[in-house]
């Protein structure tokens, strides 16, 4: 019994640390989503000003199977899409906003939490 409790605490602490690192990225990501004006076109839970109805809402985007109808959803593909949407869908309304690789990663960290 005691061993189980100890194991549980160790696991919880370990998971907590990983979560904290991901959490910092995600927090930055949320900030970046605001800074790049994503909310002008998308509704994004947790980003108060993001009430746009131009593109699809991003609630639950982490569970979606396809991104923009063209890319299978994965953290890598999401980062690619954010950086260069027109490369994957030339006629898309979504503009290329000059997001860096690192910034896209942090945005993805936040968006992948929207389940």
């Amino acid at each position, binding site marked *: 019994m005691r061993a189980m409790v100890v194991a549980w605490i160790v696991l919880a602490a370990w998971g907590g640390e990983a979560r904290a690192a991901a959490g910092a990225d995600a927090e930055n990501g949320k900030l970046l989503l605001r800074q790049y004006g994503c909310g002008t076109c998308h*509704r994004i839970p947790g980003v108060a000003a993001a009430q746009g*109805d*131009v*593109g*699809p*809402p991003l*609630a*639950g985007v982490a*569970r*979606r*199977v*396809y991104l*923009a*109808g*063209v890319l299978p959803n994965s953290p890598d593909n999401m980062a690619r899409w954010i950086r260069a949407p027109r490369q*994957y*869908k030339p*006629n*898309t*309304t*979504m503009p290329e906003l000059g997001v860096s690789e690192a910034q896209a990663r942090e945005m993805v960290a936040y968006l992948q939490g929207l389940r």
Partner: protein
Amino acid sequence: MRRLAKAASIAAAIAAVVGTIAGVAIQSGWYDVSAVEQHLKPTYWLLETAMRRSVRVRGANVAVPPLDDDALARRGLALYRRNCVGCHGAPGVAPEPFALGLAPVPANLAYTAREWPAGDLFWVVKYGLKMTGMPAWEFRMSDDELWATVAFLKRLPHLSPREYEALQATEPPPPAHESTHADPERGKRAMHQYACASCHVIPGLVGANAPVGPPLAGFGARAIIAGVLPNNPENTVRWLRAPRQVNPASAMPDLGVTERDARDMAAYLSTLKDTR
């Protein structure tokens, strides 16, 4: 009064016990849903009887036109060979292998057509049967075509395999152009019939609602469709009918949506203003 209260508490206790047993049975995965394991005999009887009664009650209200017409039956044969024979077979013709793996096994229609009134046959072909392989043909055949099919079905029990083989089918004429008024309620039915809810969460539709594509709540308030087209009825129709023409890389397939069905679906989608 006291006896009533006692009876009520006993009923509540029984309901709780039955509910618990049902809950455990469901949660434990006890019932085998595979198509290989047969139904228990009482289960089969229950499903079959409930289906038969449901169809009988609804089929009784169908107004049956004259069906004893060779030309009509020949058009029905063309439709039968295209849409039905794969699962139901025909005199001397086996169903396709995949159909033999269905549960319930598709009925032999020579028997069904002999036993069932024409109104019941029409009702089943038009609206389909839940939880069986029987699809609804409402959005795939006009009423004229459905009646032609029924006219042929009514002849089926009297055909020998040789006669069936020798029969000449005539292609039915293309369906006449129907109503031009967009009907959101019909559009909602059409969305169910084109399986839209297997990839989208759609308010008003019960289904898998899998998040394959974006949710359609708030579609009516959205500015752009599929990231490329300004949202208006014409563009919605265009997108619904030929998504891959608008965006060749799209995961959304062309589903063969008719102009009328697309117009009705667009009308329904435009009513979805609330994003939640």
